[in-house]
């Protein structure tokens, strides 16, 4: 295998981590509340716009903490006002709700910031490249990877090593039983929505310096993120992680083999195959109330 092809594989894996930040939140919110959050991409866009807005005042480092926090608070507000009314209803209703929400959010961004894309650059302290032999990588992306990996690790710890995580996982499997045990799921759902949406906001901050910032930017990322969730399987933490890396890897390999024009089609092909042969997703758990 040539070094270039190896570089493509490595780069593809790293590429997958961006999807992961979005897909993990989507999966968490769906697993616990049954809400298919089509507005998730809009929160990602809000994260990016907040960075453009706050960056000049508190710097990129400041925006890295403040923007996701604000987006998470926004998420909590939406959860309290809207999402929680739909936890027990037909998923099609929440689908309509979040679809509408995505449209409203995009138009709101257009009204406030205008339709033309805004500019935001990598801060000078994160510019530059890393060379490992023939391998080249951007220093900014390496930082991005580090932050994303830390977040994923923290969420795993939260779900698997804390009392909070135990309730959430039980709530995913059988909310009625959790209720019967005298635990109200409501604050847990609120927190999970806040974390999931905050992650989308974080992805917005991290990608603002390297992607174009425009009102419809959420649409660019939401579809691949959904594909990742479908491939990985609902309710499975590792399913989403593996699927995100797999999608990145396959995409990288397609470009490495000389077919960039197929690089987006190939991930939909993967989804098709998974749906045909393993409709629950690669690592999808059997969730009682969805059976």
């Amino acid at each position, binding site marked *: 295998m040539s070094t270039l092809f190896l570089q493509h594989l490595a780069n*593809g894996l790293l590429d997958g981590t961006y999807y992961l930040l979005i897909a993990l939140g989507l999966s968490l919110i769906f697993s616990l509340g049954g809400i298919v959050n089509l507005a998730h991409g809009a929160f990602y866009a809000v994260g990016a716009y907040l960075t453009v807005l706050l960056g000049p005042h508190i710097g990129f480092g400041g925006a890295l903490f403040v923007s996701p926090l604000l987006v998470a608070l926004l998420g909590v507000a939406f959860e309290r006002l809207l999402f929680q009314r739909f936890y027990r209803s037909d998923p099609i209703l929440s689908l309509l709700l979040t679809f509408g929400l995505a449209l409203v959010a995009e138009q709101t961004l257009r*009204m406030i910031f205008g339709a033309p894309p805004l500019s935001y650059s990598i801060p000078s302290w994160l510019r530059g490249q890393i060379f490992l032999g023939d391998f080249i990588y*951007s220093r900014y992306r390496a930082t991005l990877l580090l932050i994303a990996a830390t977040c994923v690790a923290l969420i795993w710890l939260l779900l698997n090593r804390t009392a909070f995580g135990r309730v959430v996982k039980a709530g995913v499997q059988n909310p009625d039983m959790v209720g019967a045990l005298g635990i109200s799921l409501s604050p847990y759902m609120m927190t999970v929505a806040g974390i999931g949406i905050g992650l989308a906001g974080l992805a917005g901050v991290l990608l603002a310096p*390297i*992607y*174009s910032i425009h009102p419809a930017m959420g649409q660019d990322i939401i579809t691949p993120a959904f594909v990742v969730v479908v491939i990985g399987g609902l309710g499975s933490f590792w399913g989403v992680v593996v699927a995100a890396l797999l999608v990145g890897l396959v995409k990288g390999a397609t470009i*490495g083999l000389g077919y960039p024009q197929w*690089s*987006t089609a190939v991930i939909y092909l993967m989804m098709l195959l998974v749906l045909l042969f393993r409709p629950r997703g690669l690592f999808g758990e059997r969730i009682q109330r969805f059976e």
Partner: protein
Amino acid sequence: MSKDFTLSRRAALGGAVAAGAVIIAKPSVILAQTSDVIRFGHLTPRTGFLGPLGEYGVMAADLAVEEINAAGGVLGRKLEILKEDSVNPQTASTKAERMVERDKVAAIIGEISSASCLTIAQVAQRTKTLYINTGGNSDALRGTNCNKYMFHVESQNSMYVKTCGRSLMAQGLVQGKKWFSLTADYAFGHDLLKVAKRFMEGAGGQFAADKLVPTDLTDFSALLLEIRNARPDLVIANLAGNQITNFLKQYSEFGLQFPVGGFGFDTALAWAAGKENFIGTWPVVWHHLIDTPNTKKFVAAFTAKYRKPPENQAWGDYLAVKIFAQSMNELKSTDSAKIIEHWEKGATFDVMKTREGYFRARDHQMMHEMFTVSGVGAKAPNQWDIFAASPAVPAANESLEVIASTAEENECKMA
């Protein structure tokens, strides 16, 4: 859609019902107005990946109408402009038809997508309504798909390629050189690639690689690795919309040093990339730093109204509205046949550049000067003036037609 969203839902619904009732009861209300006002239809993408550029066209068309009405309107009547999001070729066609049949527009203006230009042009031909294309670049619109009712203030792909090509030749980046090209994988990209290859073969260069890129690709890191490995003499990015911004941001992120250029470009995308990231040599049909009185006036008026300078798309829509109004006033008529005759006879227009422009009778393409711009980097004085421009192309002693396609390259049989 109006930008004013202060209506309550109840009031809006009430209003809509009332308006509907009036229209049903008195269909003549709409037609009756046509004698007091002259209407133009404006269609351009306002959502989707071309939406950000379309918005500039809308702002400029509004400004032109304002200025025309302040100066007495068209034929002593007030000029009104109906603006709609063209969305896609099918919707563009439906909306164009409605504008002509129901709203009785005197002319249609706009577009960026070449595919939508084509469907609007078909409506224009069928209904004998004039249409000025302000943003569709495909050569085919001026060739196999040309038609008597469609005129183009936007330059064709050939003009973009030949203008930028001259600049690249002057920099020694063509003869005997290897290009690595990235092309947006749809009609516009394919047309542009065809013209670029014709130019490259004629000028003695070759393509080291020629990659098609899906229009929804946002991450270029894998392609940047390919470029670094191929070590080309020049990277040609024939991308569309936000992709150019993404590409420029990431090219600078990976610190690649090969010269960059491209044949399709909009200044708004360079502004979005930012002065640290904007590099390369690119062709433009117009830019806000042209040193002529009319450009200065337009830039000042636009900036005063919208708090940002206009870009090339704004120029096209502004100019098209002005040209229609000017010709109708001169001819004292809105009759399409008379206007076509006037334009085909070589009427000239102030196009805010150093020389006047005119529509070439053979294919209705506006013959006018073009420019190339290149990034000046971090020393740019502000977020807008981030490039330096070439003198006008062609030079003052040359025919304006030297950069356009020849009859053999792009044959047009006007129906």
